[in-house]
């Protein structure tokens, strides 16, 4: 199997003092289900943001699907975010004025996908996560778990090869959190989409192909 993510001596420094990432080298294979763990401030989210082309490293390289990411090339970054990457955030990540299905469609707007095609794909995704009946509800009318299901649909709608999830269960009770985790795991099993999940909840580690532990910006064996 080919590596979907490879980082080499990745560094991220904030100001003069804070070293959020300090020489992180990882490799994630296509189709893997990977968790990134560590305490608050260990650099997990920074790693996720850099791999997700939302933030720029101060040193080292990132390769996504074999291609080196040029963080000065906005065009490449936008293109990667549109075609290769899907994001699930911790909370408040849906656009409040849009219905569930419109939120799922939203990324496809930026790729210029026609409306009927967008609608069709959004419905498929909502069906996949089991909340098709909530398609016309606004985020405020959905429970936390349902909102995260919509967010997962949105992350998957452009058919990305890699989904990056930052504390996806952080705002949910443990039962709902468990449901979201098993949903992501089953999608990973069925579609082969690579998942990189940042978490500090030990329960999520179970069943992962690889667990990356971070402490003070470094890998911990």
């Amino acid at each position, binding site marked *: 199997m080919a590596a979907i993510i490879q980082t080499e001596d990745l560094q991220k420094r904030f100001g003069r003092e804070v070293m959020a990432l300090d020489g992180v080298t990882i490799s994630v294979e296509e189709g893997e289900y990977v968790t990134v763990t560590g305490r608050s401030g260990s650099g997990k989210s920074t790693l996720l943001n850099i791999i997700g082309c939302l933030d720029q490293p101060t040193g080292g390289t990132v390769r996504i699907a074999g291609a080196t990411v040029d963080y000065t090339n906005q065009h490449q970054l936008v293109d990667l975010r*549109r075609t290769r990457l899907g994001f699930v955030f911790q909370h408040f*990540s849906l656009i409040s004025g849009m219905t569930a299905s419109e939120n799922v469609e939203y990324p496809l707007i*930026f790729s210029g996908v026609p*409306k009927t095609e967008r609608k069709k794909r959004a419905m498929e995704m909502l069906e996949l996560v089991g909340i098709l009946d909530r398609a016309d509800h606004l985020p405020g009318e959905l429970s936390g778990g349902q909102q995260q299901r919509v967010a997962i649909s949105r992350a998957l709608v452009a058919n990305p090869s890699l989904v990056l999830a930052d504390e996806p269960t952080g705002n949910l009770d443990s039962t709902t959190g468990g449901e979201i985790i098993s949903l992501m795991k089953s999608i990973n099993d069925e579609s082969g989409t690579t998942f990189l999940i940042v978490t500090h909840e030990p329960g999520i580690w179970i069943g992962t192909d690889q667990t990356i532990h971070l402490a003070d910006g470094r890998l911990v064996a």
Partner: protein
Amino acid sequence: MVRLSDVATVSFRQVTRKRLRFLLTMLGIAIGVAAVVGVVSLGEGVRTLSVEMIKDQSDLTLLEVNADIRDGVMIPITGQKIGEIERDPAIAGAVPSQRITYATERQTFISALDAAYSGFESVFTPTYLDGRGVQTGTEEVVFGYDLAETLRRYEGIRIGDRFTLLLRDYDEEGRPADIRQEFILVGVLRERGDELDLLMITDSGRTEGPFDSVFVRVESPDMVFPVVERVNGLGLASHGAFEQIRAVNQLFDIIVMVLSGFTGISLVIGALMIMNTMIISVFERTREIGISMAIGASSGDILRLILSECLFIGIAGGILGNLLGVAFAGVINSVGRNFVIAELGAGFSGFAGADIVMVTPEILLIGMVIAIVLSLLSGIYPALKAARLHPADAIRSL
């Protein structure tokens, strides 16, 4: 690349999410547009009424063409230039003339116009209170109405009378040596209300120059300004009622511009309101913008979305502003008309039955363009601010 229809849909949803804020912001620009539409309509209305009044009260299609003086040198009216004027298709008639000043033996000065009488009739279409027109190359003369009154009263000259006028001349040593000329009065013109009332018309039969003026009758009022352009292009100077219209237009250009400048202040306030609203809106949506970027929006997409929101505010503000402007113009018309007539005096009583405001499609179009352009300009800074957000930082913000 985002489709334009999708940009429109998404930004329209954004704008209408906060309805009251949108309404108030739009109202800001609409009031500015309404003020401009109202004031410009008033300016245009009074301008049009004034021009109509000049057209009604004066003989617009009559021009007097004189030799032009440029750099102190008089450019004479040659036969060739007269020929060119006569050939102009928009000119119905032209008569070259010479002005001569005579005096009666009692020293009443008389201004005479010597012109081919057939040409004079074609340009002035005179009607007679008494008598008839003159025959070419004779001593016969026709008096204008006022002149006839004056000479009848003070000199006793009546139709059919033969009388002597003096033409001031000088001998070889420079002493006055007046030439005496005999004339017969054969006709008196009806009162016209123009310069002709004071003139004596003769026809000496002279066909060669020099002539100091040519009277021109233009086919229709619409053709006056083009004819003036062409005649002036020959190195001649045109005079007539059109000059009043030109002066009125220039005056109103200035008045409308100055008044628009004042109302422009309200537009500036409207624009600042939009900028303020959009800056707040971008600030409130920082995280949402960051998420949009994470899921595929480029900086350009964000810029287009925000500017498109401003476009909606501009279009809505323009439409509402025009509606308010038309209403404002209606109020000015009904409330202000009597005031304007009272201020301008009896000469403007012609305004009584007419509208003093004139809302034209052009004014409404200008109102719309102002609203849209100002909204977009006000949106540039907030849109750039949004487009330059750093996605990771934006997502972190709450």
